[in-house]
């Protein structure tokens, strides 16, 4: 059993609450997140009454929008991290286990990727792929699906490096040498002996990749190249908040509250990842 420290437990509790809120938002007593109500535009948060967190420039309920945004932001974060894991883990495991020339070339490829401004390249790719949105729509792919792959492509290298280091260590382990000795094929050694031992690493890497992916989604949506309206995400809410902000009307909540949701989630994920890493690497395990 994993023993978490107090801070990680608080972080986990916050994330679970946010997750439940995001999953159950449809059955919560909140207004429709895209229902315009111009007569209620920019009402300040009432905290205990309706609207709890105030409304935006179109009178849409901010609490509902933040929770609906959590659905998209968190699912992009989760699936994007999964894609990064699915690329990085086999890459690193194979490089570390095979060693030698294969390892050198595979890792050199990772080094080369670090010389490329990947975010810019991915933005460029996303823009070009816009030309094919009709074809993609016909096979059921939207921009949001492209996103998972784009983000996975951005963040798999660190996972691959960690997986490689672990695989290098396991390569010389007695049970791996034993199965090599009885002539087990490489693929089955990788699947049955290397990958299961990478599980705790995987858990930590997943938690540490998540905040980066969530932030990247917010970043791209903020630039107008990510999730599109009528979908809501924290990046879109921040963008709208910033656009609404002006010196004449006091409407701090419209930027500060989505920003707070995003920041707290990022901090909680980071804290949980650090806590998990400490818990899994402690000698008492």
């Amino acid at each position, binding site marked *: 059993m994993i023993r978490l420290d107090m801070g990680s437990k608080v972080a986990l509790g916050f994330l679970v609450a946010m997750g439940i809120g995001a999953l159950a938002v449809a059955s919560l007593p909140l207004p429709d997140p895209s229902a315009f109500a111009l007569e209620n535009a920019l009402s300040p948060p009432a905290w205990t009454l309706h609207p709890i967190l105030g409304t935006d420039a179109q009178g849409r309920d901010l609490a509902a929008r933040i929770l609906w945004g959590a659905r998209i932001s968190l699912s992009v974060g989760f699936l994007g991290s999964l894609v990064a894991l699915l690329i990085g883990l086999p890459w690193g495991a194979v490089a570390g286990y095979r060693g030698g020339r294969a390892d050198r070339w595979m890792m050199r490829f990772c080094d*080369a990727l670090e*010389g*490329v*401004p990947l*975010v*810019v*390249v991915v*933005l*460029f*790719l*996303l*823009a*070009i792929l*816009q*030309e*094919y949105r009709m074809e993609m729509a016909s096979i059921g792919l939207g921009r949001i699906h492209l996103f998972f792959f784009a983000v996975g492509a951005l963040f798999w290298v660190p996972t691959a490096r960690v997986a490689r280091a672990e695989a290098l260590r396991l390569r010389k382990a007695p049970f791996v040498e034993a199965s090599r000795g009885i002539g087990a094929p490489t693929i089955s050694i990788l699947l049955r002996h290397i990958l299961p031992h990478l599980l705790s690493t995987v858990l930590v890497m997943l938690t540490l990749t998540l905040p980066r992916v969530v*932030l990247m989604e*917010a*970043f791209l949506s*903020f*630039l*107008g*190249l990510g999730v599109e309206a009528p979908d809501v995400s924290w990046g879109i809410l*921040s963008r709208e*908040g*910033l656009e609404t*902000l*002006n*010196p004449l009307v006091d409407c*701090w909540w419209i*930027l*500060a509250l989505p*920003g707070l949701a*995003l*920041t707290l989630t*990022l*901090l909680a994920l*980071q804290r949980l990842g650090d806590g998990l890493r400490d818990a899994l690497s402690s000698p008492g395990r």
Partner: protein
Amino acid sequence: MNPFLRRFGAWVFTILLVHAVAFLLVRGARGGPLDSARELPPQVRAALESHYHLDAPLAEQYARALGGLLQGDLGPSMHYRGTGVSEVLAAGLPVSLALGAGGILVALLFGIVAGLGAARRPGGVMDWAVRSGASLVMGIPNFILAGLGVAFFSFVLGWLPSAGSGGPAHFILPSLALGLPFAGQLSRLVRTRGLEVLAGDAVRAAKARGLSEFHILRFHVLPRTLVPVAAFLGPAAAGMLTGSLVVEQVFTLPGIGTHFVQAALNRDYTLALGATVLYTALLGATTWASDIWMARLDPRLGSR
């Protein structure tokens, strides 16, 4: 072979590779430079295509693009008619470089001062303040930080301009928004290294000679913390490159980032291609500069 020469070769190779891949994608993509809302008569279209050599074989087009790249000419922009991509980027580059320099300055200044201040009395009030401040600025996404900065300093206090580019004052908030998250990371590095140095013999000897605390921090501790600082600058510059996309957008600074995002939204692929190549070149150059600085601080690192 000289490691710096090898790095230079890798830099050139990366630029050429990114350019080639981006070129193929742009040429492969539907929606060429002549697809505007207005339908062109076939003769006009053919004339324009032959003018821009779009009817030539792909290899010849690539050879032309490569020749242009070597001469610093990235071809015409698809969106801004009659303007070359290089001109647009050349207009944006000084703004972006000023922002980047401001960001690095903020990161170094705040990061080093706060880190040393925290290392002076571990567990003290200053240490606590620096560490919480660092977690805070590292946790808040920079576009939120920028927005809150605008709300407070421009709208509530009215001290600083909220957007546009005019004079140095226009760069204060953007530089802070760009640099503070990195200052947070840097303060942690400097604090850790500073604690080690402060516990060492050199500092004990300096104290025994009765030197002032400021003198010790400035001349005995600071130089010894610079290697991790230099090592941090390479990745930090890469991060700032990404961050500047958003910060330029928030403050409507007409830098490369703004042009690039606009190009991506306007389907101006030649401009996007040029910006991508320029970003690749900038990233390589900053990483290189950080390596050179590191090798000068610690010659053992140069021979790798």
